[in-house]
């Protein structure tokens, strides 16, 4: 929207400039006129609907001209219009409409609204001045709503079937905001209306209960409902707390800790207890939307299983000790190991769930206090190939664009990602685009939700991304659709790449990947012909033996078509964890320190030494400073098993449950002299620890998270840490001091200042200027941030083409004869990784097991029936789980999630890793299957 030159309209007699595409309502809201136009059916995030008519205004073409009543929410403002928002007849009309609405609601609605208006609807009623309902013996539409049995077995109007969602149609005013939110925000269409006219009523699915419906519990309906007719258990809790006006309710804005989308959350707190979480409407990232994890899966924070004291293993048993005791104990043991075996016998695994400040501190402790580069984080097992590959192609290992660019894009290429489950808010945004007609290519072995809507779903065999991406490149080059100008001015090594691509045997590749080459050709040509195409990818690209190479193949396609360096294009990894971008940015990598400086280069060593105040007499002296690249996570396990690694510090990561080949991990940890685990629950890994330090949840700490679009956002503590716990930042600072390094007490703002000194792309960030919506790095001094990377040139200068031949994974080469099926794994919507958090919430009631998807063909051949138990086995081990017959997977392919570690799915997964980054190949496991 831009202000049109000199165009203006009159609001209650005063002239104001108008903008293109404004409605009378949005115009009046922008002016902030004291006379606010009331509405009931409007939600700024939804299309104008025009059902309540309460926003009606008088409109004239001249000041004294004839006036016409128009609904302001869907009438465009035009030059010279005179708008009267509160003329006597308009005020009367509003009163009369609201009286009609009240005539169909319980009689106490009016008195409640007059006494203590809480809901949006009650506030509009209260301001309207309606004093009575004049209609006598008015029939109520609720009398036509069928009753259904509730949880206590009584026939009721209230639907309480669901763990979270609630519905009570006696409060409903038929504004349809819920129906529209379900469609226009989440894109699920679980809600609609049955019947017509007066008796029209909101339904779920084919008029079933919330629990029986396909509701994904995003809560968008509950958040937009102006009356509370659709609500949830937490909002109801908040509403009843609001009636007690003696105890204040605080609203704290923070950032969700579940995935890399980085949704902002607004936490309602009373007496240090959380009542409810909502999504702030003004948040740049999520505009009032979030998913059931962010909105509802937070009760783990005060779960009875929370650790509440440091534990030290005494006589083989974890025993509660004081913090001082724990720090002393660790300090003595670490010092002894360091003395006897050297600094490199100690390693740390940081957590992408923790803040930037905490990650920065842990790597600083390992490097500047212990003296080793043995620091890694869980990016290793997810997006390390993205960072590696994009650095090699472009120079920066991060998303080139912002999620907001979806608004401009005209084409979407989605590779190996299932965002409607794993990145729900971004997934919903993509789904909205695609439903409205933006073409979509999905490259995925599984028929995901978005694949259903895709114009081209290339359902390749797991592990063949490089083959199909090369096929796409071939068809683009072959059709003469290369952006020659871009390629010649912005890239290098194209000719070699081109020759290699054109020499490929396409039929052979199509056979390898099990795809129709015509489909790939059509998709490739459509992609190349699009003006602005955006690509997204997930772990379905990275967690492969050719993970980093597939990343570079995607970068090749992006450069071939010139889809980089402007709005609506780019290459955008969907980061799995809330701060996995940040953990790497902060230097939790064995080869690069904070800000991505390679650790083995002399200049960089001096740089870090200077910033960490290292001198000849410091704890780690200049001469003791580590100069070699440290261990990656899988190397840590190998070193532990070999006896080279003696101590391991793990921050908030349950490696026993989540890393591949569990038996190997357990044996490695068991072989350590000292295992220290910072955790909120006694995880399987914590159970093996010598020392367990009780940390804090994101709801109890302050700092920053960096989301998948490089946006650094403020995390604000909503409540104080559970009694007996410390924030993870405090724990590390205390440890550093206990080890003899003088680190100032943890303060989020001070820490950020220190980071800004070390990490160049953070140089302009301060706690103050992050504001509500954060800043996207690189941030220059003064707080100028960056939405789009590589606009005029790549970070590395010219973009570099890389060609890689497809190579079959060793997992398949070695095992496919004996184990002919391929298992691939992924997340579901309801749970997060090992379920440590989500399984301690109501989400457990919604999804309570991992199931194995089996194609109908395979099920028939193996005599497997739906919901029966099956044995799944690989070269490493065997498990038993429930089969579900599905058309989401092709013959020969099996799929499961990994949220219920007791199933020990990682007993089956293997040792193959990405050649460049050692990221495990979770996505391709050669298995066998039989009915149990």
């Amino acid at each position, binding site marked *: 929207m831009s202000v049109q030159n000199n165009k203006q309209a009159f609001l209650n007699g005063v002239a104001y400039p108008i903008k293109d595409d404004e409605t009378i309502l949005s115009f009046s809201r922008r002016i902030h006129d004291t006379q606010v136009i009331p509405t009931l059916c409007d939600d700024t995030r939804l*299309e*104008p*609907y*025009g*059902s*309540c*008519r309460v926003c*009606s205004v008088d409109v004239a073409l001249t000041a004294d001209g004839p006036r016409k*009543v128009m*609904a302001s*929410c*869907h009438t*465009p403002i035009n030059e010279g219009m005179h708008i009267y928002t509160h003329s006597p*007849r308009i005020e*009367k*009309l509003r009163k*009369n*409409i609201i009286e*009609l*609405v009240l*005539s*169909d609601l319980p009689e106490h609605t009016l008195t409640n609204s007059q006494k203590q208006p809480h809901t949006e609807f009650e506030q509009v009623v209260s301001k309207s001045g309606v004093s009575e309902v*004049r*209609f*006598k*013996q*008015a*029939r109520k539409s609720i009398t036509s709503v069928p009753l259904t049995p509730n949880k206590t077995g009584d026939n009721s109007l209230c639907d309480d079937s669901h763990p979270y969602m609630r519905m009570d149609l006696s409060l409903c005013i*038929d504004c*349809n905001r819920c129906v*529209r939110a*379900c*469609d*226009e925000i989440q*894109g*699920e*269409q*679980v*809600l*609609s*209306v*049955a*019947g*017509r*006219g*007066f*008796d*029209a009523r909101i*339904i*779920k*699915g*084919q*008029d079933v209960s919330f629990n029986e*419906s*396909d509701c994904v519990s995003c809560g968008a309906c509950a958040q937009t409902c102006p009356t509370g007719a659709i609500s949830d258990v937490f909002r109801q809790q908040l509403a009843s707390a609001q009636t007690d006006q003696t105890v204040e309710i605080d609203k704290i804005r923070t950032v969700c800790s579940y995935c890399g989308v980085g949704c902002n959350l607004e936490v309602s707190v009373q007496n240090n207890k959380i009542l409810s979480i909502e999504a702030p409407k003004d948040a740049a990232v999520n505009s009032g939307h979030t998913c059931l994890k962010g909105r509802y899966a937070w009760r783990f924070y005060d779960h009875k299983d929370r650790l509440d004291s440091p534990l030290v293993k005494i006589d083989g048993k974890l025993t509660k000790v004081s913090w001082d005791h724990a720090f002393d104990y660790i300090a003595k043991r670490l010092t002894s190991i360091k003395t006897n075996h050297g600094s490199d016998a100690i390693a740390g695994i940081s957590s992408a769930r923790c803040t930037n400040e905490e990650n920065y501190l842990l790597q600083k402790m390992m490097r500047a206090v212990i003296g080793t580069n043995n620091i890694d984080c869980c990016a290793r097992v997810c997006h390390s190939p993205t960072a590696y590959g994009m650095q090699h192609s472009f120079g920066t290992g991060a998303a080139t664009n912002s999620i907001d660019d979806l608004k401009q894009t005209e084409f979407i290429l989605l590779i190996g990602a299932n965002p409607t489950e794993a990145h729900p808010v971004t997934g919903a945004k993509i789904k*909205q685009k695609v*439903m*409205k*007609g933006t073409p979509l290519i999905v490259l995925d072995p599984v028929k995901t939700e978005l694949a*259903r809507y895709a114009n081209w779903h290339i359902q390749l065999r797991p592990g063949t991304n490089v083959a199909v991406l090369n096929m796409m490149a071939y068809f683009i080059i072959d059709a003469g659709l290369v952006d020659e100008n871009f390629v010649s001015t912005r890239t290098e090594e194209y000719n070699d790449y081109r020759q290699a691509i054109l020499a490929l045997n396409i039929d052979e590749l199509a056979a390898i990947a099990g795809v129709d080459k015509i489909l790939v050709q059509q998709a490739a040509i459509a992609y190349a012909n699009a003006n602005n195409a955006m690509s997204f990818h997930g772990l379905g690209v990275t967690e492969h033996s050719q993970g980093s190479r597939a990343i570079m193949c995607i970068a090749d396609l992006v450069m071939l078509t010139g889809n980089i360096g402007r709005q609506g294009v780019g290459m955008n990894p969907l980061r799995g964890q809330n701060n996995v971008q940040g953990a790497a940015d902060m230097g939790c990598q064995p080869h690069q320190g904070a800000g991505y400086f390679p650790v083995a280069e002399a200049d960089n060593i001096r740089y870090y030494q200077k910033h960490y105040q290292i001198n000849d007499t410091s704890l780690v002296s200049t001469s003791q400073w580590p100069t070699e690249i440290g261990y990656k996570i899988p190397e840590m396990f190998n070193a532990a098993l070999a006896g080279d690694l003696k101590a391991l510090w793990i921050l908030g990561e349950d490696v026993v449950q989540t890393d591949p080949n569990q038996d190997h991990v357990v044996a490695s940890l068991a072989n350590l002299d000292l295992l220290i685990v910072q955790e909120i629950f006694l995880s399987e890994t914590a159970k093996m620890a010598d020392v367990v330090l009780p940390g804090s949840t994101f709801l109890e700490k302050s700092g920053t998270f960096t989301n998948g679009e490089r946006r650094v956002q403020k995390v604000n503590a909503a409540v104080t840490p559970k009694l007996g716990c410390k924030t993870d930042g405090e724990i590390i600072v205390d440890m550093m001091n206990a080890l003899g390094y003088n680190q100032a007490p943890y303060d989020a703002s001070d820490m950020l200042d220190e980071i800004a000194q070390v990490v160049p792309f953070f140089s302009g960030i301060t706690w103050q200027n992050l504001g509500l919506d954060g800043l996207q790095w690189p941030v220059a001094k003064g707080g100028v941030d960056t939405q789009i990377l590589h606009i005029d040139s790549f970070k590395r200068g010219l973009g570099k083409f890389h060609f890689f031949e497809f190579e079959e994974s060793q997992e398949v080469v070695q095992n496919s004869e004996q184990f002919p099926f391929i298992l691939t794994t992924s997340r579901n919507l309801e749970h997060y990784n090992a379920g440590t958090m989500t399984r301690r919430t109501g989400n457990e009631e919604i999804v309570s097991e991992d199931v194995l998807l089996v194609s109908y063909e395979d099920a028939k051949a193996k005599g497997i029936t739906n919901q029966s138990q099956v044995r799944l086995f690989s070269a490493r081990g065997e498990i038993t789980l429930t089969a579900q017959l599905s058309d989401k997977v092709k013959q020969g392919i099996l799929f499961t999630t990994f949220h219920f570690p007791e199933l020990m799915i990682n007993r089956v997964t293997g040792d193959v890793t990405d050649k460049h980054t050692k990221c495990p190949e979770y996505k391709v496991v050669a298995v066998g299957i039989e009915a149990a």
Partner: protein
Amino acid sequence: MSKNLSQLARRQGIDNTLFQQLVVTDAADKSDSLKQQRQALAKEYLMGEAVIHGAASFYDFLDDGTNSHNANKKAYVCNGSSCLCAGTQTSVKDKLVNHFGADNVGHVTCLGRCAENSAFQLSDKPSLVNFSGKDIDVLETIANDPSTQSNEHYLVQCMLAEPILTAEITDVSQYYQLFTQLFDQYEQTQLLDKLVESGLRGRGGAGFPTGIKWRSCLNESNKEKYIVCNADEGDAGAFSDRYLLEQRPHAVLFGMLMAGALTGAKTGVLYIRAEYPDAIKQTEQAINEFDALNLNNDFNFKIIKGAGAYICGEETALLRSIEGQRPVVSVRPPFPTQSGLFGCPTVVNNVETFGSLHFIFSNLANEQNSGVLKYKNLGNGKSTGSKLLSLDGAFNKPGIIEVAMGTPLTEVIKLAGGFAKTVKALHIGGPLGGVVPLSEIDKLTVDFESFAQHGFLLGHASIIGIPESMKMIDYIAHLFEFTALESCGKCYPCQIGSVRGQEMFEQAISAEQFINRELLHDLLETMQLGSLCALGGGVPLPIQNILQYFSKELAPYFSSENNHQGEQS
């Protein structure tokens, strides 16, 4: 409306609409349960199950999953205003109930058999068949012999020297030659200019200039565009569109063909109400005849059959209906010419509007006597051309009359042979048109301006005679009831207001309450000013007419005027 649903519907195209699937699955043998069928549809159309259920439950003739629905009955009795005024329906219903049983008799609002009344529909035959007049007397024969056809007869008269809409089409091949000739000789824009010059205005009731509408559609840059013929003639008392589709379908198709050529649309959709089975049959046959001509034209026709919902006559609701959405009224802008069917630029016009096109474009080269000139010269300059009137059984010679715009209403009544019974008012222009007392008739001429000027509405120009015996209090209750039944339920003034109005009058009739005049005034004003579309916004007009012209008859029902009525104390 949902943009998502419009676009998801667009993926399937006009030949595979969810709405027609709903109609088909509902009528089909139920080997699968309805629930499973709709689950499968949801999957196929990539829509939520609630969308399918929600859409289906809107219509009278689709199963909404409850036992009390109006779908799948063996017989339907017409409860439209004309049959109500004729007083025929109690006995028709009794006879139907007697034959089929009470559970097998539903209701339908207006079969367009207003010239004969006693209208009903049978659906346990191979297809739907409508009956009227004396047909009910031979119900046993009709019910036992599926091939029995109605003995319907109504007069078609023309007051013009040269008929326009009522002109016979003898040679179909020759009829369409005009189309080829026109585009051999003229540019698109020249023809559009001629259309504007003719002064043709939409015959659905709103009277929007047709040429302007088509031009704005032409100006849209989308390649995909649609022409939609609104043949959901739901106004009780109106049957002129039914007449055209049954007897002059090629005139309508020709108009749509022209619209396509002048706007760049390649598809013409006729949305015909299910209550008009013969219109559907005749139009289908005409399309086959058109296709057989092989005009070397890439314009395709498609019939969409309605399922019983008056609001589908509102153009945005009609478009949503085709898309398989709940046919609730959409906000404007965007107007259909900008974003209509499947979100594409769309011309929606009434049957009669399209029917005028052939005449208008005839003899275009003849500067003195072209169709354009002849059309323009009929009427008062603002309302041009001719108009079809539907006259109901209250007249001695009921039927269709074609008149020039501007013709005095008294002349029409004369031609219709005067009234067959004592009539106290005419309800002209459908349920949302005005109620004209006898005293005002000689002031009116048949055109948009005259009616508006006198506080009435020409609308679609159906004329129902309200007999002396009809109590106006009952007639108002009927109008509110009709609105309450047919309201889409989107905007509050109509959704709730119509029910409150109905209650107010029913309570007055049953002597439970006097009518609170101030409250009634507020209600009518709220509906008129606040409603989203012409249904809620329009029904206050006839009610206000009655309140004005029949105040004496109604006085006993108002508290302030009369407190002496023993029965209402």
